[in-house]
């Protein structure tokens, strides 16, 4: 019996050793902890970086990528999941790692504030838009059933609440005064039309594709992901909406402990390269680097059509929106956490009043 085991194990051991010897450059491993929706992006970007890194340094790099809801992923890393790089959906989930002492460098020091991809909160409707939904205001109309994920379980769902509240507060929702009171009333009115609060953004899309609800509030990139997956629905751009910004950062403590800081930093930098940003654009995100390039191009030489066409930011695919604001409009995530989603926050009161 023992002999049989040895016979089985021996060749494996030998080939194992020879495998290591045959390799000129030792491989290093990078662990990426990402939220769920950009999986399609990283599946394509990671091989690009592996090739780039091999050419630059002669070193092979292997990836272990984990995809989980942003909040859960952030807490996992905080709790000891040793990821070298995190790609999360909200700044607040990175701030948690800064507070935990795991990220020690100024991760927002690049020109894009550490935000590797952006998107917009938009409306998705049934093909042909049977309920004639044209802007946020239609969410509060009689007979319109709305789907949005639960802000309590999905950090990403908080974008939707902020988008509608901000648009009303800034005077872009007809029938509501452009102030705190009007915005609050609008929030209450449309929340009373919500049929299902799914735990996550993807769950909401799945429920919608099962035929529940008239309008789904989601992100532009989720719309493109759904279309790519063969779902059929139309997109409606509101006049005013929030810019969704997704951060990426090196986790100093773990990258140093694993001795892979150089590669981890190179990977994060690579995500901002035109090559990687084009993948983001291809998957439906509005990549900040290409966007900035387009803006420069526009101001530098108006009508510089060639670059517009080459850039992935095709205005037919990513139409301009009249009014775009960011979380900074609400004073940043720290402020939003208490003001909107605390025990006595605006959303917490509104969802209670909506019932």
């Amino acid at each position, binding site marked *: 019996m023992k002999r049989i085991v040895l016979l089985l194990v021996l060749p494996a051991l030998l080939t194992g050793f020879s495998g290591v010897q045959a390799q000129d450059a030792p491989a290093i491993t990078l662990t990426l902890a990402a939220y769920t929706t950009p999986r399609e992006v990283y599946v394509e970007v990671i091989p690009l970086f592996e090739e780039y890194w091999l050419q630059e340094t002669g070193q092979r790099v292997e990836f272990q990528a984990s995809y989980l809801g942003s909040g859960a992923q952030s807490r996992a890393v905080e709790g000891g999941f040793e990821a070298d790089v995190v790609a999360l959906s909200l700044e607040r989930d990175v701030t948690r790692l800064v507070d935990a002492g795991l990220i020690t460098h100024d991760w927002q020091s690049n020109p894009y504030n550490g935000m590797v991809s952006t998107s917009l909160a938009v409306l998705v409707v049934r093909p042909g838009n049977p309920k004639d939904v044209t802007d946020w205001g239609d969410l509060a109309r009689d007979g319109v059933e709305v789907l949005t994920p639960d802000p309590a379980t999905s950090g990403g769902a908080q974008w939707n609440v902020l988008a509608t509240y901000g648009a009303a507060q800034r005077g872009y929702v007809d029938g509501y005064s452009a102030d705190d009171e009007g915005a609050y009333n609008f929030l209450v009115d449309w929340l009373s039309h919500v049929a*299902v609060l799914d*735990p996550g953004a993807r769950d909401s899309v799945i429920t919608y594709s099962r035929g529940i609800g008239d309008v789904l509030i989601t992100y532009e990139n989720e719309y493109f992901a759904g279309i790519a997956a063969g779902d059929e629905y139309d997109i409606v751009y509101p006049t005013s909406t929030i810019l969704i910004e997704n951060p990426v950062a090196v986790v100093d403590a773990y990258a140093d402990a694993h001795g892979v800081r150089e590669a981890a930093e190179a990977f994060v930098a690579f995500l901002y390269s035109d090559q990687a940003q084009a993948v983001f654009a291809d998957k439906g995100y509005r990549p900040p680097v290409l966007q900035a390039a387009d803006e420069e191009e526009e101001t530098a030489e108006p009508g510089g059509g060639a670059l517009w066409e080459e850039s992935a930011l095709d205005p037919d695919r990513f139409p301009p929106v009249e009014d775009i604001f960011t979380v900074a409009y609400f004073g940043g995530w720290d402020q939003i956490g208490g003001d909107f989603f605390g025990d006595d926050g605006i959303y917490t009161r509104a969802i209670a009043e909506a019932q």
Partner: protein
Amino acid sequence: MQNAARLEQEAVNAPRPQLDLSGWGLRGTAIVYLLVMIALPVFVVFSSGLQAGLSGFWDNVSHPHAVSALRVTLVTAAIMTVINVVMGTLTAYVLVTYRFPGKNVLDALIDLPFAIPTLVTGIMLVLLYGPQTALAGFLQDRFDVRVLYARPGIVLALLFICYPFVIRAVQPVLVQLDERQPEAAYTLGASGWYTFRRIVFPAIRPAMLSGGMLGFARALGEFGAIVIVAGNIPLRTQTAPVYIYGKVEAGNMPAASAVSVVLLGVALIVTLGVDWMQRSRQHG
């Protein structure tokens, strides 16, 4: 003779200490295992829920969303339990009393809900009662009942998950029931219903109750199926486990633990009640 008796006595005595040792070892292992696997996690939740003091605990538990979530959970679990006790007893009675083709297959099917991941249960119910299905359209048009994303959906999910509890509690009692008693009652002229009410029912009542209560306790914590079928709207269709999950996701552990303590407390009382009932049945 005396000698032989003494030898026999010694032979019996000799291995005793060893037996005792292993007995203590077994007992110790079982107790430590119970402490580590069950008591410790329960204790941690209790201490975390009460960390902010009683007033903090009360604030967390008396939040309108928490109160409503607990109410939805308790009410749906109670409705499920009533249906489960009645239909479960009926099913067990039929399985024990009657012969019919396919009975063995049916009997095996009963345990299936224990083996199916509850997430799958949720998906099955969505496929069955989803808004595009004929069944949902019929219920909506004919009775104006919306099953999914409403409380009936929660009760249905719980019924599926807790299906075996009452049947599996009542069935063995019915099998063991002395057949002569009902037969005697019957030959003395008692009707079938009278026989059931006066002879069979008193014998199986403790099993019905303990099976129903165990199912109730199990239903309190159900998450996987409910998060899919309930709709999760606060103050309407959000259950306590889904509320707790939301609080955990939001990083509000004190609120999550406080509501968990309430659920644990109810479950503890219920299981203690079951235990007490089984004990009194043995003695009575």
